[in-house]
């Protein structure tokens, strides 16, 4: 229960700040707030273009967040239970508790999706997860498994928040890689086979995630 609520709150925050931006007119202005360091999560949330200054509207902002999460949770519950009236007995308290727990979480940095990037990413993601599963299934059934496990560090250059989480979670689905640990801005990747190349694959994934979130192309990483 408590494990699922942060995720659901994320869904709420996502809807709140999601705007489709395919033409990338002003990616810089939107991406900059997300680049701030992960130190003060309790400072005023900068979730989007319509967020006012720090003076006053903190309360309204929080109420809006609560209402958005409650709405998202209620719709999910309704669809899960096929809008059955008697299921509300459990659904209503769950929605209220979920939205309230979510309101205690630090606000996530704002982000937006590129529609074209999302479609391309979904397609690529499907192909890669099939590749990864066939690779590991083949090793499981093969007599000698061809394992040469190792750990490799990889520098994280994506902004904190949704892009970085997406990157770390997707690595686990790529063939032969697993994100094992995070030390500040360095990710420790576990590899099934030390002989395969790591950097080109991850750099490719990184640029795809930049396209997905309508971020400007990587500044220093090549």
């Amino acid at each position, binding site marked *: 229960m408590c*494990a*699922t609520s942060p*995720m659901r709150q994320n869904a709420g925050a996502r809807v709140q700040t999601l705007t489709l931006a395919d033409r990338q007119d002003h990616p810089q202005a939107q991406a900059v707030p997300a680049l701030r360091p992960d130190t003060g999560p309790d400072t005023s949330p900068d979730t989007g273009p319509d967020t006012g200054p720090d003076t006053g509207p903190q309360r309204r902002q929080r109420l809006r967040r609560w209402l958005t999460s409650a709405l998202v949770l209620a719709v*999910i519950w309704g*669809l*899960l239970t*096929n809008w059955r009236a008697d299921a509300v007995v459990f659904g209503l308290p769950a929605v209220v508790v979920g939205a309230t727990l979510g309101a205690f979480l630090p606000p996530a940095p704002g982000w937006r999706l590129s529609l074209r990037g999302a479609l391309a990413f979904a397609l690529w993601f499907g192909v890669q*997860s*099939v590749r*990864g*599963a*066939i*690779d*590991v*299934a083949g*090793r*499981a*059934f093969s007599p000698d*498994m061809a*394992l040469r*496990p*190792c*750990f490799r*560090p990889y520098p994280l250059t994506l902004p904190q928040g949704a892009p970085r989480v997406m990157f*770390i*979670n*997707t690595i*686990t*689905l790529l*063939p*032969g890689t*697993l*994100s*094992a*640990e*995070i030390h500040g801005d360095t990710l*420790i990747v*576990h590899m*099934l086979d030390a002989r395969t190349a790591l950097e080109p694959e991850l750099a490719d994934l990184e640029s795809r995630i930049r396209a997905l979130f309508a971020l400007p192309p990587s500044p220093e990483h090549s």
Partner: protein
Amino acid sequence: MLELLGAGLIGLGAVFFVAGTVGLLRFPDVFCRLHALTKADGLGLALIALGVALQAGTGGAVFRIALIWGFVALASATCGHLIARHARQMAGGRHD
């Protein structure tokens, strides 16, 4: 026809679940085993969900299946990372 395709997908999904389990049993350490669980079982679930969705009658059922798949995929990647991190910290954070 659709029924047959659905059954085929479910059968293929089951094969990947078996592969994940075989990997879990055969692979040498916790990290390699996590590879087997997160990847093979993830695709196994996706195939089974697709097969069931083909046989499901209503759009609501299809949406529920997609929702379940999404939550499980997110949870398995996150849990895999958390287990790996815990295992590394227990081992004293060896680096190589």
